[in-house]
């Protein structure tokens, strides 16, 4: 059935989008860094998985175990080297926002340039578990299903980490109010770095998962950054469950528009959704206060 096809592919896509956005919501919501190079890191992880799979024959599930810690360390370094000076010189949150936007915009071109030098501008994909599975009479590729399943599992783990552990509580405290978090003995600078790095681990995970079923090239990062930003704002900045719900909504909206309108219009659908949220609920779908 056509409608089942569309809804299923929307939910699968949405699960991945949710994971992409969760990393950004940590980086922006907790570390207060608006990372415009975010999508380039997704694409970098796609390429890492591609190389591991085609050259070394490592399957993407194992690649996850390599890419996530590696990206955690890289993003920690990015925060320590590039972001800390900005955090130190910024007189207020607004100035840090502008500075981080500019710095990561520069970073975007560096990362993209490196990828272009190594891989060129052509499209890449590889075939892993590309076998159809029947669900409710509709065929879904096993790799997509697996990717969405892993994405949801990681999302759930993150949610539990944030909600049930002492460390997670501290991260949430910094997200809500960094100044007050200091008063109760939380080392905000360290937790900001930790959240940024954790966001980096998630971006790597999402990149590896995306590469399992998606055709990508070196200059596609902007699209992923845009989607992640829209989901973060839709779900409410720093709200992990909000990002999950908003990711599913965006995935569904894209699948519906591709199914019933035209697949060339997905970006327009993204923007339309973004505009609707901005005009209707600027604090996000689940935001408590209107700004």
């Amino acid at each position, binding site marked *: 059935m056509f409608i089942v096809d569309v809804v299923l592919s929307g939910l699968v896509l949405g699960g991945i989008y949710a994971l992409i956005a969760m990393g950004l919501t940590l980086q922006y919501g907790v570390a207060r860094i*608006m990372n*415009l190079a975010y999508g380039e890191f997704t694409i970098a992880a796609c390429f890492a998985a591609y190389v591991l799979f085609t050259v070394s024959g490592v399957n993407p599930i194992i690649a996850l175990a390599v890419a996530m810690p590696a990206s955690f360390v890289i993003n920690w370094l990015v925060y320590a080297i*590039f972001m800390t*000076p900005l955090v130190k*010189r910024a007189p207020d949150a*607004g100035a840090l*926002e*502008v*500075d981080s*936007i*500019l*710095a990561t*915009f*520069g*970073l*975007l*071109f*560096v*990362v*993209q*340039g*490196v990828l*272009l*030098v190594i891989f060129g501008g052509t499209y890449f994909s590889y075939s892993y578990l590309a076998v159809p599975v029947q669900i409710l009479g509709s065929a879904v590729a096993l790799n997509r299903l697996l990717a969405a399943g892993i994405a949801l599992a990681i999302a759930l783990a993150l949610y539990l980490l944030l909600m049930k552990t002492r460390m997670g509580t501290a991260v949430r405290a910094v997200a809500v109010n960094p100044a007050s978090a200091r008063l109760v003995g939380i080392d905000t600078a360290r937790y900001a770095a930790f959240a940024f790095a954790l966001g980096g681990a998630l971006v790597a995970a999402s990149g590896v998962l995306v590469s399992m079923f998606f055709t990508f090239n070196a200059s596609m990062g*902007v*699209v992923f*950054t*845009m989607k992640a*930003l*829209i989901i973060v*704002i839709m779900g409410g900045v720093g709200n992990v469950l909000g990002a999950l719900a908003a990711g599913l909504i965006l995935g569904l909206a894209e699948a519906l528009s591709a199914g019933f309108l*035209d697949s*060339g*219009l*997905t*970006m*327009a659908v*993204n*923007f339309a959704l*973004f*505009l609707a949220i*901005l*005009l209707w609920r*600027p604090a996000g779908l689940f935001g408590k206060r209107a*700004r």
Partner: protein
Amino acid sequence: MNSPIFLAAVAAIAGAFALVQPHLGPFWQSLLINILMYTALATAWALFSGPTRYVSLATAAFFGLGAYTMAFLGEAMPLPMVYLSAAVIGAVVAAIVGLSTLRLSGVYFVIFTFGLAELIRQLVTWAEAKFGGTVGRFVFVPVSPTDIYFMLIAACVAVFALGWWVQRSRLGWALRAIGEDETVARHAGIDVTRAKVLLFSLSASVMSVVGCIMAPRWTYIDATIAFNPIISFQVLIMALLGGAARLYGPVLGVVPLAILFELLQANFPNHFSILLGAVFLAVVYLVPRGVAGLLEKRR
């Protein structure tokens, strides 16, 4: 800089550019065209983003709209009408974007402008494939590089005149107040959204006209060429290096960087994007207030 000196300087430099034209070879003319183009774009960018401190990443979107206006209408109407159409289209699109995002906190505006070029690029590609059945378009209009050179001089003079006028108008004061503190500005009775949208539209319409002027240089354009994000990026970095807080600031960044980028592109075409990013990072970290800011500090 007080205004008679400023206006005289603009007129003198524009005159000098016009006078040297007959003596320029193709290389120098093309370099100067680049400098003029980026001067117009970066100054137009700073016109809005300087006083309000709203970072716009959409230069390529408006530039590309202008280029496409030329591609679509270049053969259908007299040239002056085409440039006028580009100005109107740029202003209208900017007004729509501004009205929906400039009422909110600055970060939404940045995000929106960040994706805008990509959005319009995809829409144009989609519309061309669906209705035009083409990927790109040829631009055959009787405009020579020398015409472009002189039109860009006129565009630069127009931007500086516009900027000078805005600075002394009520609008300019309102924008500076918004840049200092938006809440205070609102309490002082300034219609902040109206002021921001108005200036954003003005700035965008200049960018579109510049895109429209430049389009014949390519002969062939497609959406990837016209909406190349590198344009937004270069304009931003030039304006930041020069200093967006002063009207003459961006030029100070345009001249060295336009030459540097020309050299980099000629010598390291494959590593251009990396080098560009590195230069940008250096500017953000080392000269956050721009060359104009440094000059003023020393005084």
